[in-house]
């Protein structure tokens, strides 16, 4: 069953193999920058070398799988949904980073995720996300005394 010369190499699999190789190179390069410490036995360099070597071996293994096209069949994806969710996460990170506060950040994430799942009622989702974010904030920040980042909205509460 694996002797099917007609099967074309799996492109994604080849990319995965290349990424694993790159990862191995990064780990080995980083290890080479470590200062040598004199200890008995093995130092901090041994484990990264083993893992780097393992990744090179696995890169070859995945290359083999990809070359024989031994990858599972995949369905088409909806790139818009992926972009919406990742965009929401990026917005959340930006808002937290700039001090916009927990409620604003998670409300945006709620709206974009709902949109990624096909919702088009932005105002309703905005309201639900806002209520949910405020409820979580009150529950965890006030009741369980976790410290969630505060922005303008949180200072009003």
């Amino acid at each position: 069953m694996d002797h099917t010369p007609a099967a074309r190499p799996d492109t994604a699999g080849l990319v995965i193999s290349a990424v694993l190789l790159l990862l191995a190179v990064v780990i080995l390069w980083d290890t080479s920058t470590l200062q040598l410490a004199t200890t008995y036995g093995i130092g901090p360099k041994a484990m990264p070398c083993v893992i780097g070597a393992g990744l090179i071996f696995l890169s070859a293994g995945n290359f083999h799988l990809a070359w024989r096209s031994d990858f599972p069949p995949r369905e088409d994806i909806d790139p818009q949904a992926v972009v919406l969710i990742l965009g929401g996460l990026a917005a959340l990170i930006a808002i937290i980073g700039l001090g916009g506060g927990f409620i604003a950040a998670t409300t945006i994430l709620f709206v974009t995720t709902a949109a990624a799942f096909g919702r088009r009622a932005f105002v309703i989702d905005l309201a639900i996300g806002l209520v949910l974010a405020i409820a979580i904030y009150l529950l965890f920040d006030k009741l369980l005394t976790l410290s969630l980042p505060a922005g303008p909205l949180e200072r009003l509460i």
Partner: protein
Amino acid sequence: MDALNSLIQGLAVATQPINLLYALIGVLLGTAVGVLPGIGPALTVALLLPVTFKLDPAGSLIMFAGIYYGGMYGGSTTAILINTPGESASLATALEGNKMAKAGRGGPALATAAIGSFVAGTLATLGIVFLAPWLVEVAVSFGPEDYFALMCVAFITVSATFGASPIRGLTSLFLGLGLGLVGIDKLTGQARLTFGVPELLDGVEVTTLAVGLFAVGEALYVASRRNKREEKLEPVRGSLWMTSQDWSRSWKPWLRGTLFGFPIGALPAGGAEIPTFLSYSAERRLTKHPEEFGKGAIEGVAGPEAANNASAAGTLVPLLTLGLPTSATAAMMLAGFQQYGLNPGPLLFAERPDLVWGLIASLFIANAMLLVLNLPLVGLWVRLLAIPQPWLYAGILVFATMGTIAAKPSVVELSMLAVFGVLGFLMRRYDYPVAPVVVGLILGPMAEAQLRRALQISLGDPLVLVQSPMSATLLSIALIALVAPFILKGMNRFKSSED
């Protein structure tokens, strides 16, 4: 009986009113989150970690016991009522359970799952009570080289031996091991793979990785193929009660499932899929109603569900006695211990028996609470299942990021969460198992520390690894477990090319 005495002391801790309350909250939260489609027990524990941040260790671990069993129970409800099991261990339950729900027998299916989980969970927890002290005795004599060898066995069995493809499993494992390198090396204080980013000095948080892989990855995956599949929620029709025939057909599968689940869970053999499928095929062979299999046979729910729960309890044996997590869920439980600077193992049994035995005792209590609460509350859980998908996943992501923000409100940590989400999405899409990454991250640094300690004691002589009989045996097992799937595959290929 030492074990019984310790258990009674543990019960004294677990039955304090405040701890009973924690157990109750844990059970309710665990079930509520576990019942949500697409959320397995590992993610349930990871998502609910922040709830316990501010509790004392005993209360928090007791709540964890409830969350753990509650999450397991919630997952089986989802598997029966919508055919989308949150994890592979519920696949077997979904096979017959969903058919039963379609045929209007959802009530008895849920009941046999609940009672079977209770029976299996209780028996398996008794197994922990008697097995753990004995294993602790053995583990006391373990040297660092033995621990290292044991971890090697866990690495291989979790990633390579039982998965669909050893190459894919090992790829996942080595990604986890690589992530485990990030941060300050504990023995020499040198920074590895931090690229000058100060936030990376502490290493990668297991919870960030798990929540990213499971929650964000799952949301991306489901959203990207939203139009491909319709989920249908089966209403619970008819009586919740099992008839006497249901009972007589269920009790043997419960016991057999427990016998499959507990030993396999207690061995570092990784995952509950194997015992659930063993139990399913055993019931299929032993049943007096073979014509019902594939159309909703109650044995096919009772057995795998018992096996699933027994194996979940079984994984607590290596976790508590050796500090060895053998599943993603156990890795999350270990993270729960570590947030208090507690390391499970023989030392913890000696130093904090109140904690360990309180946790074990509260497993019994959580199990009993689940049995009493879940059947009456099944209407509530079904309503949770009916949350529209967009709001459900939006809510999951909000909660998931909240956990990370509460633990470490930094741009770096949140970016890691997003990157792990993309990683989880890609791994799902290209069919790489996710659990070995989590186990690799948490176990990798521990294995490295044990190896280096062993070599320090032996003044750098690597032969120490094979001079201890225990370590030599374990390393041979690891080697066999690594090579066996390749040889078996090669033999299959040889056979198929002969045909």
